[in-house]
């Protein structure tokens, strides 16, 4: 009986973890590149920022590709994000999030069909 109870507890706990994980990943999927750019990039690269203002249309598509593929990690590995518990930017932004941010930047670069600021 005791053993059965323990098994049931483990199953319930497991299901809860699975449910929470899938909820979190569903939430992640809903967050688009624009929102992520505003949340994670604009915080340090807004208007008049000493770090330089960056919106998607600050650079051309080649420059964004080059930045994300070759320079992002080097230039941001020591940067901490005060808005996200002073963690390293490179730890806060997951590879999945980075992919979305890159796509948003490239799709709305200065030489794209729809150049954009991030609002």
């Amino acid at each position, binding site marked *: 009986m005791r053993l059965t109870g323990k098994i049931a507890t483990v199953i319930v706990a497991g299901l809860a973890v699975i449910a929470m994980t899938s909820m979190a990943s569903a939430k992640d999927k809903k967050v688009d590149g624009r929102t992520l750019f505003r949340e994670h990039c604009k915080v340090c690269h807004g208007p008049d920022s000493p770090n330089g203002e960056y919106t998607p249309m600050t650079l051309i598509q080649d420059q964004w590709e080059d930045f994300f593929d070759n320079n992002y990690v080097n230039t941001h590995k020591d940067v901490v994000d005060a808005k996200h518990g002073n963690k390293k930017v490179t730890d806060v932004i997951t590879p999945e999030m980075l992919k979305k941010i890159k796509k948003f930047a490239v799709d709305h670069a200065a030489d794209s*069909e729809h150049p954009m600021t991030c609002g």
Partner: protein
Amino acid sequence: MTLKRIALAACALALVAAPASARKTYSHQKYFEHYEGTKTCLKCHKKQARSFFHSQHYQWKATASNVVGAKDRKLGKINMINDFCTNPLPTWIGEWKNKDGKIVEEGCSKCHTGRGIVPAETISDEQLENIDCLICHASGYRRNIYEKEGGGYEWKPILWKNTVGLDSVSKRISLPTRTMCLRCHAGSGGGPNFKRGDLEYKQTECDADFDVHMAKDGNDMQCIDCHQGEDHKIAGPGADIAGNEMPDKNILCNNDDCHGNEPHEQKILNMHTRRVFCTACHIPVFAKDNPTNMVRDWSKGHYSEKKGKYTYTAKFEKDVTPVLRWWNGKTTIMQVAGEPVKKDEKGEIMVAVPVGSKDDPNSKIFAFKEYHAVMPVLKDRQWILPILTGDFYVTGDMDAAVKKATEKFYGIKDAQFEWAPTIHYMGLFHEVSPASKAVGCLGCHSSGSRIDWKALGYEGDPMMALLQKSH
């Protein structure tokens, strides 16, 4: 041998590591290092700039050989008043902001091929440097409005602070592509497909059902394949554009280069081409993606929460059936500034009405978008008036917007005006469907016909009349 291999491997690595932009070369890569505005282009292309200065795309007017009564006058949007955004001069350039500080209007020069200065009659270095060559010749070139140091505004590349980016974009020089043309022409009238109805952003990448000529996976034709030019003059102004800078070069589907006079396999269909132009059957609907503006009543302004500005009352429609009218290539365009308006029998001001009839052997039946508007007219002289649209969008004060624009444009203070309806037929020549999607026989010759036979000068379907006669 080993050293060679190491050297080759090192080269390959360097190539991979190099920025993507550095690996690409463009048509004008070797001609200049840094783009410093139009003067960079003028170093080699002064002759071309001079020809462009005189073109309709810069002057916004040209000899109007197709307009009845135009004589030798040069007409165009710069000296006429149309029933969409009226006239560009009062709202040429600037930043009109709403109460939240959001820009709601940047001026009509947004789609002018200059950098912000109004085109002049006389050529000068200032005018030549005002030409924005890249807007039609550099893919990836985008510009924005900026305040000038000495006051006023100008259009500048959005990359003006990014030398590497601007140098890359400014070297991507080519003849104008479909995308470049559509950037302005699909947005005319204030928004996507607002004005023309058959020119949409979707045509940059559409399928053959949408537009059999421009389809990316089909003919993939560029605008300039039909609208061929010479010295920056462009052929084919359509039915409601006054200026025609290449009057001897008409764009017709039945040219020998294209479809000829007997393009169909069935004789009965080829018999139609004598009096029915291709578009009447091959454009069964237009505005296939974005709804187009069918009615614009400037007299009924209201505040739009969605747009964050005051605006006119409008009716937009999608998948619209064209109206058919006779046209012999001439158009009655009556919105010439400073001349009394002329009205049709319904009392509507004829902004652009095709000339032609069934009794005119030079006329054929063409497809048109029939557009209606309500416009301000000067009470005593009956001149059609402009509107300072930017001011109206911000304040909602139409009376002031008309009076201010009239003073700027005509020099008339405190203009007393009334409102009058307009009629405007716009020829449809794009969004041509493939043969399988064209209008069939019963589309016209049946009880539920799409055709208003009376408007074409018939009592009813002439084919039915013939059949009844023969029985």
